[in-house]
């Protein structure tokens, strides 16, 4: 079963905030001709059931636009007025898509709060009318449903409203959101998608008739939601104001903890629900539309919408289709990265060879792939049969057998130039002419790796992020010699693996590692200045980073950080200075390599969640202690010292042409490095926060520390002309 494809039937229409879907087959409805003048909605009558079909023209998805609203209102009024019609079915003419929520473009087009509020109110009115419809209305939904504005249930629905979780059809049924499920059909006398929609419609009509004839009771079995939260006792408890206050408080606390107060939407939703319950639904609706308007106007909303657009952009292959599809992939090195890449390849149907130098290494890698797939079985996202069939795409081996068929080789061996050279030569001796050689490296320049290649036009960098199956980003690095077709192939493979892709030019540290390095250098200086790693972590996470800065060093690996700091330090010199790399050297010599060795800034133990500081670090830190500069050491200054160095370097990458577009820079920073999503990425941050303010900050720190904080030319230009924006 395709996990993201859900078919459900709701006996009651709920408001959908975001629905996602794919697939598009347009069907013309052959209903009464008078109705065909409408562009978004058609309806026809079958017996005494009105079948309302939603079909936004010229679009893959149906969106809640103004036209759709008005046509829908018109149609529903006709249905309610008609004597012949006793019930109605709402269905989309697009298989795989019911309504994809409000169009983001429409929302971003709104200039004022009032506009958005008005849009929201219009939607509410019709939904409210639907809810109170005197005639039964059945919604037949084919498409997956994210979140959902379920203004009905309280705490349970709250959870969904807040986190916007993805719910599969079978779960939606269990939770009582959906009343009936219809399974997708296979081949018949028509294309399966088309027949499935028809079948869904037929079943929905039966239900609508049954409801109108009172043969089927609209009362649902108590779903999981209700049995869970609304046992009679809790239902009673919720009537007591004091208990309610406690519930609100608890939910709010939890939300604050999870969002660190950086995302305004969840808190506003709580407010709205509170208003709805305490002051009645009218006040609730009013409050909802106002708050919705306020939210759309926030910086966070702009930042997140920007990320959405950026992501759409990075899901396209700007190089066009490659000449030859990659069907056989070979991966060198069965380490964490190699096995991770193998996992995301085999489950998309790529025949993959995983080669390692030792049997122990290979075993570990194969086990990692198996465990990754098996975890999905445990979560019921795969059946054990599917797991086995996917796993059979993987061949583990120690030799180069079968490489003569490979269309692409991705090497993920240890980060050592001479080793990479050796591997490249070995591989080129066995692969066919058309085969692409991709290097998964985080900092070694690809042109240096390609220097020993017989065919440098086939060499490219593919920088994955660990853990590969979770991190969405893939940074593709092209050298001057890399051919366009090689790039097209690499992007095609990355897209197949489900990655969001940025394509950057070759250079030390490419884009992502290069942005991270100066920030890491600053992390070391801050620690040297006596800031506790725990304090530093909380400062960074409260700024919106998903992982604290000290923890990040531990996760990446202290040895890797040292490696990168040294390499890039040599190239970029003073600008990458700040913290003393000696700190990392000493940690490595003591074996404090971070999580992988059990000790870094923190102590890691198997099965222990709580992290304790590594007290052995005290002496190292003491020996390298720097006096803090009180001018620039407030909490906020510490946060901005980190972020401004990051941002400055990112802008410099654009200035130097490493990055092609600011959008790719934002996507790379957010999806690869955990740059706070609520800020939308370094470039969006400059636009929204103001280049001048950032330059002011940088200048202040420059006065204290020197060149590391000198704003780059492009950033200075933006500060000088306030009309200049990265995003127009």
């Amino acid at each position: 079963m395709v996990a993201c494809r859900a078919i459900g039937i709701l006996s009651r229409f709920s408001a959908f905030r975001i629905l996602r879907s794919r697939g598009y087959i347009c069907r013309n409805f052959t209903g009464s001709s008078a109705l065909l003048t409408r562009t978004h909605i058609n309806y026809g009558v079958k017996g005494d059931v009105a079948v309302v079909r939603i079909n936004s023209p010229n679009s893959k998805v149906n969106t809640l636009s103004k036209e759709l609203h008005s046509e829908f209102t018109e149609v529903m009024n006709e249905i309610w007025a008609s004597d012949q019609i006793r019930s109605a079915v709402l269905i989309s003419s697009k298989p795989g898509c019911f309504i994809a929520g409000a169009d983001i473009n429409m929302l971003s087009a709104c200039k004022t709060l009032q506009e958005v509020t008005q849009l929201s109110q219009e939607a509410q009115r019709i939904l409210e009318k639907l809810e109170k419809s005197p005639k039964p209305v059945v919604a037949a939904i084919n498409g997956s449903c994210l979140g959902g504005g379920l203004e009905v249930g309280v705490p349970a629905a709250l959870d969904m409203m807040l986190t916007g979780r993805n719910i599969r059809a079978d779960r939606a049924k269990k939770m009582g959101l959906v009343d009936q499920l219809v399974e997708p059909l296979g081949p018949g006398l028509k294309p399966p998608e088309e027949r499935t929609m028809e079948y869904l419609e037929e079943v929905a009509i039966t239900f609508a008739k049954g409801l109108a004839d009172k043969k089927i009771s609209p009362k649902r079995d108590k779903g999981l939601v209700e049995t869970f939260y609304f046992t009679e006792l809790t239902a009673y408890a919720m009537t007591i104001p004091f208990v309610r206050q406690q519930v609100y408080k608890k939910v709010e606390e939890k939300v604050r903890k999870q969002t660190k107060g950086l995302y305004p939407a969840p808190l506003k939703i709580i407010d709205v629900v509170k208003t709805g319950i305490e002051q009645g639904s009218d006040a609730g609706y009013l409050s909802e539309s106002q708050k919705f308007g306020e939210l759309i106007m926030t910086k966070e909303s702009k930042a997140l919408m920007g990320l959405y657009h950026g992501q759409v952009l990075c899901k396209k292959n700007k190089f066009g289709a490659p000449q030859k599809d990659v069907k056989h992939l070979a991966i060198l090195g069965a380490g964490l990265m190699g096995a991770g890449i193998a996992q995301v390849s085999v489950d998309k149907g790529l025949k993959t060879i995983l080669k390692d130098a030792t049997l122990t290494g290979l075993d570990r890698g194969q086990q990692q792939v198996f465990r990754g797939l098996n975890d999905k079985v445990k979560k019921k996202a795969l059946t054990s049969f599917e797991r086995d069939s996917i796993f059979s795409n993987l061949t583990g081996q120690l030799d180069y057998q079968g490489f003569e068929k490979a269309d692409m080789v991705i090497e993920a061996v240890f980060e050592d130039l001479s080793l990479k050279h050796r591997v490249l030569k070995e591989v080129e001796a066995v692969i066919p002419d058309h085969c692409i050689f991709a290097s998964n490296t985080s900092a070694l320049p690809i042109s240096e790796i390609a220097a020993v290649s017989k065919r440098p036009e086939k060499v490219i960098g593919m920088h994955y992020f660990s853990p590969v199956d979770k991190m969405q980003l893939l940074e593709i690095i092209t050298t001057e010699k890399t051919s366009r077709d090689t790039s097209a192939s690499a992007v095609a493979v990355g897209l197949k693996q489900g990655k969001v892709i940025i394509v950057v030019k070759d250079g030390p540290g490419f884009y992502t590692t290069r942005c991270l390095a100066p920030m890491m250098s600053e992390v070391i200086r801050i620690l040297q200045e006596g800031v506790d790693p725990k304090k530093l972590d909380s400062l960074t996470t409260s700024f919106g980073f998903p992982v604290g800065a000290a923890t990040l060093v531990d996760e990446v690996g202290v040895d890797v950080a040292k490696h990168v700091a040294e390499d890039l330090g040599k190239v970029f010199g003073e600008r990458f200075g700040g913290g003393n790399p000696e700190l990392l050297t000493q940690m490595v010599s003591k074996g404090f390599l971070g999580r992988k060795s059990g000790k870094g800034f923190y102590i890691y133990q198997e099965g222990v969640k709580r992290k304790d500081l590594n007290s052995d670090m005290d002496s190292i830190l003491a020996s390298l202690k720097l006096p803090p500069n009180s001018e620039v050491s407030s909490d906020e200054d510490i946060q901005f010292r980190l972020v401004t160095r990051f941002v400055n370097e990112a802008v410099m990458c654009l200035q130097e042409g490493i990055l092609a577009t600011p959008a790719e820079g934002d996507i790379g920073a957010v999806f690869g490095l955990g740059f706070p999503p609520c800020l939308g990425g370094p470039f969006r941050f400059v636009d929204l926060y103001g280049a001048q303010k950032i330059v002011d900050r940088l200048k202040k720190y420059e006065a204290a520390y020197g060149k590391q904080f000198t704003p780059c030319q492009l950033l200075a230009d933006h500060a000088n002309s306030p009309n200049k924006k990265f995003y127009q």
Partner: protein
Amino acid sequence: MTTILAYPFKNLPTTSKWALRFAIRPLSCSSQLRAAPAVQTKTKKTLAKPNIRNVVVVDGVRTPFLLSGTSYKDLMPHDLARAALTGLLHRTSVPKEVVDYIIFGTVIQEVKTSNVAREAALGAGFSDKTPAHTVTMACISANQAMTTGVGLIASGQCDVIVAGGVELMSDVPIRHSRKMRKLMLDLNKAKSMGQRLSLISKFRLNFLAPELPAVAEFSTSETMGHSADRLAAAFAVSRLEQDEYALRSHSLAKKAQDEGLLSDIVPFKVPGKDTVTKDNGIRPSSLEQMAKLKPAFIKPYGTVTAANSSFLTDGASAILIMAEEKALAMGYKPKAYLRDFMYVSQDPKDQLLLGPTYATPKVLEKAGLTMNDIDAFEFHEAFSGQILANFKAMDSDWFAENYMGRKTKVGLPPLEKFNNWGGSLSLGHPFGATGCRLVMAAANRLRKEGGQYGLVAACAAGGQVRYRGVIGPSRESFSWND
């Protein structure tokens, strides 16, 4: 209901492998054999192939097919198989010592008699020098037994084969859970009391939850009834059509039973009970009655119900097949020739039960025949919806073009030649035994109704289909199953 076990699409090549391996063998006797089919004087072409021995059905029998949980419920599978074997011996009077080999099909295995063919043969008084093996291929296990025999004869390895099948759904192996089994096996190996106690301390109550034989396709976890319901919906087969077809099956079976046409049945004296002489699942009802039933699988709007599905059945069948010259030399008048057969397989999720549509044109083309040449069709009826979906698929140019790579539709088998004496819906469907019943029904119908070719087809779990040809003495019949 034919829901069972899983046989993912792997065993297809078995028969062809046989053919390959022995194809080169010089056939010393083949030239004489060819003489026999030459007698066929009809205008229709003979299906005999050069250099391949002709294979004939001498005769075949079956025990009455009973609803599981009725008279056979205290038996073991080999008891039923033995009844079929002794019945065959009695019917054909074949001397035991000429039987070269015995093959039986079964689906849900009784663990104690996993080679049920051998246990039954020994009990039925066959020579203990006659080897026997058991095959399994979901609902076409008996077909696999027969075609395995055809392969052995055609390749000259054997002259006389007994093939058959058995299923006893009244009793199925219900196992301890894997955890419990592991605990018990470990206990076996424990040496000291201390080890035993520490093992026992690991016992948890949930270990006792039993494991039932899977009623779902292993690869998709979908039960077959569910799959049939989706298939019916995909082809827009209505509930009424399905009920009507089921009613037809029951009415025809009743008629055939009343007229004594089901002559392949041999009475079976069940130990401690009365002699069973006829099938007990034939129950013609009325459309009104059938319309009252609730859907059995997809609730509440599905269309497959208990009344339009085949039911769980106990039963066994056996058939005697020989090289043609051997049969003639022994003075037998063969009932049919077994000609071409073919197995196909496809997607086990969405096309699980569409095998007959795929296999029919292939086997016909292989034999150089058309739909019009066939006089008796015997298709396995797993579900009304499945048969009707296959009809619609065979009648659809769109389906032929898009899924079968054919330019034109397969064409519908004429209903008046189709399962005229009832089918699995009414007679019952003991998974492992149905194949032989289909072949004997086709052969007996050709003799009774006149006609030359018969075609047998069935669909099986795992999405496999098989096909076979049966030929009457001066007629030829043709069939396929899956």
